[in-house]
């Protein structure tokens, strides 16, 4: 895992260092009177005069101590932007979306598999295909148009959902007694409705498909027939024999999906103007604020590697046939 991470960080760092345009370009534009010497000084101060591998090892040394450098755009440490400011927001949005998606998709998938080829199954399969093929940016814009513009204009009592999904309320305001706890939660929840809905609808579709396929495969196996032949009730066969095995691949997939939760949804966050991790990555690339981009991407690579490992371990927990010696 360590060599894999090392290689990943080398690749990401190199790609970011090779990005077109100097970070100093902007400075040059803002201040046309800046002299070549001053630029050279700044270049040396930022360490941009050194070769890439020297910069990489310097970055690695500092990053291992938790120092990811300064953000040029916000003039604060990159680690603070990513881990303190953006990460919690992204966890709320993507975590809520994944939870909602699983809570709906697993029962629906089970239902659909048990009633295979019924009318309900066809409808569920159709909708999962639709959700699966729906681009998130289209669904997002559609939801915005419907619930922030079209319906509120026509239905007076309908709540007008905001175009900007980030709440202005801060937790510190609750502590100082400016607003109540419920106002705080309510405002956040209200503003998160649309992005969570968009994100979870898309995810729901694939989880339903996975759950249905996984359960169908198990239901066709011999031991399920044996269990039925023994005269066990359908309930016991389904929940005790089939479902447990059908959930094994789902657990792995959930494990593999969790790094995505941290990574945030770049597109969803862009559409709903929600400043989370995904937006941080996108904005830092556009603004050439590479310390922030590097911190975020390195963190995501670490998470992906860790959760790959955890998914393997979880596999062993839920499936006693697998033993790691």
């Amino acid at each position, binding site marked *: 895992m360590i060599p*894999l991470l090392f290689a990943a960080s080398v690749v990401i760092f190199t790609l970011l260092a090779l990005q077109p345009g100097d970070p100093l370009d902007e400075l040059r534009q803002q201040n046309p009177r800046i002299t070549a010497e001053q630029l050279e000084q700044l270049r040396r101060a930022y360490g941009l005069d050194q070769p890439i591998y020297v910069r990489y090892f310097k970055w690695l040394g500092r990053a291992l101590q938790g120092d990811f450098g300064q953000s040029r755009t916000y003039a604060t440490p990159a680690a603070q932007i990513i881990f303190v400011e953006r990460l919690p927001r992204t966890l709320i949005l993507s975590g809520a979306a994944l939870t909602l998606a699983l809570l709906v998709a697993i029962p629906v998938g089970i239902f659909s598999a048990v009633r295979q080829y019924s009318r309900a199954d066809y409808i569920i399969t159709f909708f999962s*295909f639709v959700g*699966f093929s729906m681009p*998130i940016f289209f669904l997002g*814009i559609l939801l915005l148009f419907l619930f922030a513009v079209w319906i509120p204009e026509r239905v007076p009592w309908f709540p007008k959902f905001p175009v900007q999904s980030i709440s202005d309320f801060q937790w510190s305001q609750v502590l100082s007694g400016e607003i109540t706890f419920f106002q705080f939660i309510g405002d956040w929840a209200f503003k998160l409705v649309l992005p969570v809905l968009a994100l979870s609808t898309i995810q729901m579709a694939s989880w339903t498909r996975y759950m249905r396929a996984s359960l169908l495969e198990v239901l066709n196996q011999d031991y399920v027939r044996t269990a039925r032949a023994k005269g066990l009730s359908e309930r016991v066969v389904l929940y005790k024999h089939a479902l447990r095995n059908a959930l094994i691949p789902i657990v792995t997939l959930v494990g593999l999906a969790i790094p995505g939760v941290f990574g945030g949804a770049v597109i969803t966050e862009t559409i709903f103007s929600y400043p989370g991790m995904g937006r941080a990555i996108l904005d830092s690339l556009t603004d050439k604020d590479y310390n922030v981009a590097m911190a975020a991407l390195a963190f995501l690579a670490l998470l*992906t590697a860790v959760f790959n490992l955890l998914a393997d371990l979880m596999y062993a927990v839920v499936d006693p046939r697998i033993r790691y010696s």
Partner: protein
Amino acid sequence: MAAVATTSKSKSQSTWALAWRRFRRHKAAMFSLGVVIALVLMAIFAPWIAPYSPTAQPTGDNLADYYFQGPSWEHWLGTDELGRDVLSRIIYGARISLLVGFVAAIAAALLGTTLGVIAGYFSGRPLRFYMGPLAKVAGGWKPWPFALWRVASWLLLYTLLFLAADLAWTLSGANVQALFSGTFTLNNLLSLLGLALVWGVILLIGIWGLFGQGRLDLDVVISRFMDFMLTIPELPLLLVLSALLRDNQGVVGQWAQAVFGESASVFIIITIIVLFGWIGTGRLIRGAVLSLREQDFTTAAQALGAGEARIMFRHLVPNTLAPLIVNATLAIGGAILTEAALSFLGFGIQPPVATWGNMLTKAQEYIFTAPWLALAPGFMIFLTVLAFNYLGDGLRDALDPRSRL
């Protein structure tokens, strides 16, 4: 002999005929096939179908009147923020989307198949890339170019060793001089010790080179590389790569600009989609080949003296065709979606070239004033991807009836 050939041919035809019969039963897939054919025709004949040029802007007085027109008889889907006809842009956008989808999916399938077959077929059989002149030749893989490569690699290794020794000697020249001129210091001593160490290593490699063997497990290399690609967060990396390769000052950017002109970014987007897209196919094919190569027909082919390449591409690959076709069909939808997402974020195909993705970028800004701008391109992306997904589903039922997902 001829009779055998005919029967095998008619048999393979009947397999496809059987698949077609199964495919026809899948109504949604048949409908999707119609949609895909219509889209392809629309893309091919875009210049004849489109009522206006996709980039034509109105000229004359009162330009503002031409902007943001709602749907009307002149402009079925209205006009955008520069007065361009949305329907024409949609029709031309189909060209880009389908081009990206087909080319990226086919290229990714070819790359993934090649690497997957190599990884699966040579799994557990390391490639001997070096073999010393005195090394014992064991049984196993000995194609004729290997004898040639054996001599060449041997010469190469010893040339490199000679150059390394020569360089070490040259670098230590001053220290050896100091030894004889009486100005010998601790620094000189350390340098000479370093020289001795380097020569010791060179000598050891030289001795190993006589008897030793260098092996390279292609499966380990390819599989590790696939694992590695899965560690890196995909969408951010696509953004980074896109910004890097589209750069007009960069090597790739300039080359693409020179070769492809205005559509350089189309080529670059296809490239980076392929860069990530082959991994799924690669894993699929590798897994299939791992089990196929243990089957009797492979042994039979080996016994008949078929070469490695022949076994891989004539015997193994055709047997993986069913999942490969299904996978590639679904990949077309995936590639179209990726292109649209990248273009939507401004990291894909750049305006003025009209693509469904970059039409949506602008449309989001005008969602309050001109919602129809967002509906048309978004719906087209959705419809196309849905059609390819259903097509893939139908193909899976038709070609690969055992597997179901």
